[in-house]
């Protein structure tokens, strides 16, 4: 064990920790606003990475079919309600956003071979294909149950997770994929090689976290989300529709997930089901933050990444055991120090 190994392990831990931190933030956000423990968060990571990978091999990603199917379902559900309430003016935007744009995207993908695009454009296309899945999933699976108990929402969340995994296998196949790195640069840091891609992951994650901070502090939508997180009924009385808050936070969660997926796709092999474990480690981070505090969650996730990295060096066979055992002392400490606050409003 010398300094170089120590540095390399730290670097590895911080890279993974940065991704876990992003996911932990998304999990805290979704839980605070909608009380959903969002198990499928990791699936967005896998979908983002694999959609990008299939774009690169020139295939039309299966994600587009899910987008079309979910979009049509949302259009039918909302369209039926609008027709009954005779709010015809709202119909065109509903149809355009949920059916028109996905159809346009599908047509575009079939008309133009996506492997011709530059890498950054492929990344953008992949994000655009995955992000709308977030609000659509919220509309179809969670909105009708918005006032149900945390347990019911958790069960639905597991159902969504299992469905997405199954669809992932169908869309992307059982084998994993890896995308080319965004940058080939590498540095020397105290004698240890440092890959450009690693820096990119850390910097991009940091930027995204800062961006989220400004979104919540400075914009009206961010403030609306914070208000809903603090007090749902109060926010509703102030004219913030809970459905809008829910959709918005699921959009953010999907965006964070897809973005993380695209970031790590060049440094590891992603499978249709690898999202779950990545999401779970983000969840450990979120638990450290008590599913409430953003900075503690992010730090917790970073700790998970570092712990994982060092334990894979010292005791590789017990790596997962060590990482997930971390949750026990944290829960103990949390339950001893904080008073229990009743979640349910009913």
């Amino acid at each position, binding site marked *: *064990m010398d300094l170089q*190994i120590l540095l*390399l*392990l730290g670097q*590895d831990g911080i*890279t*993974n920790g940065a*991704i876990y931190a992003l996911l932990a933030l998304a999990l805290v956000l979704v839980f605070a606003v909608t009380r959903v423990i969002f198990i499928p968060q990791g699936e967005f990571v896998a979908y983002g990475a694999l959609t990008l990978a299939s774009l690169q091999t020139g295939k039309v990603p299966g994600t587009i079919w899910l987008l079309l199917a979910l979009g049509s379902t949302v259009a039918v559900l909302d369209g039926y309600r609008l027709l009954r309430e005779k709010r015809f003016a709202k119909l065109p935007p509903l149809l355009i956003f949920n059916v028109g744009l996905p159809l346009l995207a599908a047509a575009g993908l079939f008309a133009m071979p996506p492997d011709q695009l530059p890498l950054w454009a492929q990344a953008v296309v992949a994000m655009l294909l995955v992000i709308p899945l977030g609000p659509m999933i919220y509309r179809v699976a969670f909105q009708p149950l918005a006032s149900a108990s945390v347990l019911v929402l958790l069960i639905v969340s597991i159902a969504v997770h299992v469905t997405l995994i*199954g669809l992932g*296998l169908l869309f992307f*196949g*059982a*084998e*994993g*994929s*890896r995308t080319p790195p965004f940058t080939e640069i590498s540095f020397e840091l105290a004698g240890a*090689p440092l*890959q450009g891609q690693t820096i990119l992951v850390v910097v991009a994650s940091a930027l995204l976290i800062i961006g989220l901070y400004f979104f919540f502090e400075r914009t009206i939508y961010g403030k609306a989300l914070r208000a809903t997180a603090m007090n749902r009924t109060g926010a509703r009385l102030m004219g913030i529709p809970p459905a809008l808050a829910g959709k918005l936070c699921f959009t953010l969660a999907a965006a964070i997930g897809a973005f993380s997926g695209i970031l*790590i796709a060049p*440094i*590891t*092999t992603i*499978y249709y*089901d*690898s999202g*779950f*474990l*990545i999401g779970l480690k983000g969840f450990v981070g979120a638990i450290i933050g008590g599913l409430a505090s953003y900075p503690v969650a992010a730090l917790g996730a970073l700790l998970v990444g570092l712990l*994982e*990295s*060092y*334990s*894979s*060096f*010292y005791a*590789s*066979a017990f*790596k*997962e055991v060590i990482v997930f055992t971390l949750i026990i002392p944290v829960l103990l400490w949390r339950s001893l120090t904080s008073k229990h606050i009743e979640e349910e409003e009913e």
Partner: protein
Amino acid sequence: MKKTLLATLLSTFAVGALADINIGVTLSATGPAASLGIPEKNTIDLLPKTIAGQKVNYIVLDDASDTTTAVKNAKKLISENKVDLIIGSTTTPNSLAMIDVAAEGETPMIAMAAAARIVEPMDEKRKWVFKTPQNDAQMSTAIVEHMTNNNVTTVAFIGFSDAYGEGWWKEFSKLAEVRKIKLVANERFNRTDTSVTGQVLKVLSAKPDAILIGGAGTPAALPQKSLKEKGYKGIIYQTHGVANNDFLRVCGKDCEGTVLPSGPMLVAAQLPADNPVKKSALEYVGKYEAVHGKGSVNAFGGYAWDAGMLFANAAPVALKKAQPGSREFRLALRDALEGTANLAGSHGVFNMSPSDHLGLDQRARVMVTIQQGTWKLAR
């Protein structure tokens, strides 16, 4: 004339309805072993639909790589579908769990999983069980042989933290010790890991001449890429679990020069013309690629194909003794499977005996290197 024709037709139908051969298949088409189960499932579709004039029905069930489901499937196939033979399952744990069910139902079973424990040690239960993939021990011997020939004296091992990695470690460490090869590190990683930097650094600090990666499928590419990234210059060995084209795609140029043992099917076209496996392996490759496209075939489908070939070879013998669907037929089929002699499949030549229910010999493995992103037979 017309009447006789009609009568013949009717009688064939009647016989057919009474005595189709039913084969139950349970494999892991979804779940963690899906990359193995899917080509196996595709291969089942290519197996002969009639044997010696008898119609053969294949009833394919998915066990989702789950042991409980595999057992449930096997029970269902025996009690409800009254199958004459079970083919499956894809993974070792599933196949091991199915042994009891097959023996209890007195139904022969051909497993497509690798572990030697499935057919060894031979006992009253395993009497009913056969398997097609090569034993890990056979493959380990090939690797150790290659290592001694290349003056490798120290080896590190990075394997899956599951039955696959553990099995390889056991077999390999045993053989390496006999051949005086020193094992300097033994590390584990998970199929779903996003980083193996820790394990790789630990292995590198032991400075081994060669490294064996005991993983299957595309996940085995991750340690190899990390090793190359950290500048490892020695020989990297993989196991036959990586022998599919997705591995080449994911691993890319970092896999150049990798050495692995494999069934001869992987390099069938490069085998010398007098190799007994060449013809039968190419036949399977041709059939599979005709349906699924060029380059789509992989070793795992070959295991299912060989199971089908074993059955197709044994069924005519058994049909002479009893009618399908009866206990007598299953017994006769079991005896016929055990009597398989000199049957060339896609992975080797099968010679079964009461004590050997695998029946493969050294012709069932070759050493392969990866050169310019393709498999090359090492001579």
